[in-house]
């Protein structure tokens, strides 16, 4: 420990003692190299003369200007870099703060999520007015759930899955078909959709999970596209590109959300409000997401969950400890797929309409981006990343004033992907391991005495 901390201090001290002469020398060297390169490339120009011959023009001024420019640029760059290194060294213990921040953020986010319909009603005046916020809440929670589901596969087990949306599609179409063809209710279809998606996970997993890293990513990417193309082209089965519409709505465990005699409102003695259904859907997805979270947190403490993480760290060591790597990967794949299936059937019941359109690669990419930005394995990190990635673009809608700057035809929404890209690049530069990058141990020695 002692040697580890003295070296950087010694290095900074040396840098502080004589920063400028060294930097000037370094910049001078750069300028010299520039000169060397410029002499053959820039300093002589040949132009067509009056006759047939070429005329040589010398451009020593340009060469000099270029060398000077390089000198100055290099000096500025070096000054900036050393300054930054020094600032970095000064605030090394920032890592601790991030986990404390997460510990505070988690309960706050939960309380807001639990009371969102109430908050929306209070802040906007009436339940109907709060509709926009509840809708947005549902959308974000769907992605939080998908993010948590994919986190099992990517964050814990370390299997790069680029076709996660396929399982979401399987879940959505399971509900859509089972309910429209066989008339099954949502509450029967929900577990079935999860099972179907998990079965697809196992089906895909068996042949491909022996692949590693990039190869696995490519195959899962292809799988996602195959599912989408099948849904588009197998018209008899899935309705093709037109999708499936008039999917039955959700009921309150059997009580429909209608104005009639047997409706939800009448049974509980409330006056009918179309918003009841939306609030119910909101709490439904909240519960589904929280179940996903709870299962993941529990799994991390179980031997199987620990084996997932161990697998991510070192597959060969796992095998030497008697862990069946294929089965272990399959369980992670299947469990992640199952949650996508749940989320998919929720998506179908909320929209009352599904089409292959909703399950393209961009969705997979967004979900993966949420997991990576969140910090690969951190539950609260994923939730925050989902809020930022899904809620953030919504803010763009409200940036009408930008029209004044960029002209009438400017639609901030069209720049969504550009902003995604920028956000990703910024993240990779400033927090390459994700928003919350520290890992919480699944067990501590203090539990020995308990």
């Amino acid at each position, binding site marked *: 420990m002692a040697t580890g901390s003295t070296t950087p201090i010694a290095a900074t001290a040396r840098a502080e003692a004589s920063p400028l002469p060294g930097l000037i020398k370094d910049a001078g060297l750069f300028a010299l190299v520039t000169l060397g390169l410029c002499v053959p490339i820039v300093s002589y120009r040949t132009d067509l003369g009056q006759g047939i011959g070429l005329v040589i023009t010398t451009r020593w001024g340009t060469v000099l200007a270029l060398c000077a420019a390089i000198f100055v640029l290099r000096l500025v760059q070096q000054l900036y870099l050393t300054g930054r290194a020094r600032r970095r060294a000064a605030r090394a213990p920032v890592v601790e703060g991030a986990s404390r921040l997460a510990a505070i953020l988690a309960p706050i986010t939960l309380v807001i999520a639990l009371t969102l319909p109430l908050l929306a009603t209070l802040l906007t005046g009436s339940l109907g007015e709060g509709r926009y916020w509840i809708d947005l809440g549902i959308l974000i929670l769907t992605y939080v759930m998908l993010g948590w589901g994919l986190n099992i596969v990517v964050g814990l087990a370390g299997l790069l899955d680029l076709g996660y949306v396929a399982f979401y599609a399987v879940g959505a179409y399971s509900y859509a078909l089972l309910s429209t063809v066989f008339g099954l209710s949502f509450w029967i279809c929900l577990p079935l959709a999860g099972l179907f998606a998990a079965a697809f996970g196992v089906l895909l997993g068996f042949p491909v999970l022996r692949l590693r890293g990039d190869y696995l990513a490519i195959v899962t990417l292809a799988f996602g596209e195959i599912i989408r193309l099948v849904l588009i082209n197998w018209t008899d089965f899935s309705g093709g590109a037109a999708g499936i519409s008039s999917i039955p709505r959700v009921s309150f465990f059997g009580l429909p959300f209608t104005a009639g005699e047997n409706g939800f409102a009448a049974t509980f003695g409330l006056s009918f409000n179309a918003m009841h259904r939306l609030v119910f859907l909101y709490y439904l997805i909240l519960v589904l997401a929280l179940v996903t979270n709870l*299962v993941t947190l*529990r*799994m991390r*403490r*179980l*031997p*199987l*969950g*620990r*084996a997932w*993480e*161990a697998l991510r*760290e*070192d597959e*060969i*060591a*796992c*095998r*030497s*400890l*008697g*862990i*069946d*790597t294929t089965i272990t990967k399959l*369980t992670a794949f299947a469990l992640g797929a199952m949650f996508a299936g749940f989320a998919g059937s929720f998506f179908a019941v909320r929209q009352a309409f599904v089409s292959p359109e909703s399950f393209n690669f961009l969705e997979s990419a967004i979900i993966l981006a949420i997991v990576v930005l969140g910090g690969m394995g951190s539950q609260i990190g994923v939730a925050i990343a989902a809020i930022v990635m899904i809620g953030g673009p919504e803010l763009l809608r409200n940036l009408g004033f930008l029209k004044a700057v960029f002209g009438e035809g400017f639609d901030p929404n069209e720049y969504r992907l550009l902003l995604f890209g920028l956000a990703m690049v910024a993240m990779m530069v400033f927090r390459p391991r994700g928003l919350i990058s520290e*890992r919480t*141990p*699944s*067990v*501590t*020695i203090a*539990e*020995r005495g*308990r």
Partner: protein
Amino acid sequence: MTLATGINRLATLQDEPPAAIPGGPADPVLIVDHLTMRFGGLTAVNDLSFKVGRGDITALIGPNGAGKTTVFNCITGFYKPSEGMIRLVQKGGETYLLERLPGHDVNRLARVARTFQNIRLFPRMTVLENLLVAMHKPLMRASGFSILGILGLPAYRSAEKAGIEKAAAWLDRIGLTARADDAAGDLPYGDQRRLEIARAMCTDPVLLCLDEPAAGLNPRESSELNTLLRLIRDEYDTSVLLIEHDMSVVMQISDRIVVLDYGIKIADGTPDDIRTDTRVIAAYLGVDDEEVAAVEAEVGLTGTQA
């Protein structure tokens, strides 16, 4: 599941007590028979036969590239040998053909554990978690293959507690209790080596294979390692097979030594036998190539190398 069990049963031979090779240990735990491993044109291990006695520390030594790690990889199911048979005999007489078991079953069923020449811990997981991962099989059963565990039933909780207790005992033994909750990758090198051994021991092995456990250790750490290995031999039902270059470790603690050179066994015996063996001295103990050739010609060993 059933298919796998069937295959395992195929690989389990109940009869056929191992024939005693004269001079070998009387009650062997591992019998390597005519093992050959080829990589393309290169024969890394050539017709190797030896035995590891139950309760012994057996050392496998030889110059760099002699094929020692390849032998380990064959024993522990990472390579399928080109030829030969590797039998593991448990105390009850139950025999496993290791070369036929799928990789993970070598540890799970036959109970052979190993460490690696370049340490393979789970670097981002804590020291304690590293040990708990090694108790996968019993904990998995206690958690009802996760189904009971997810429901939070108390059976798993007590099993986990027992697991932590066992891990803590090992941490005490290797002196890492204070660092139990630190990431394993942050430990100093010597501690990582000991942790890897403790992790292998947490799988309750019959045979522990250590690939150069003393590499990179200072003399004090090296003698601590000797104590640890003796403790493993004396207090557990675990036999040890180790690859080692450090002669002070090998000569002090091994009951038997097998010497490899270019994939061929050139000697097999007690440390005293080995110390005086001319071929070993020629091949191993720092003689130049010409002299080696001269000695090999003398003892009638020519043209055997791949």
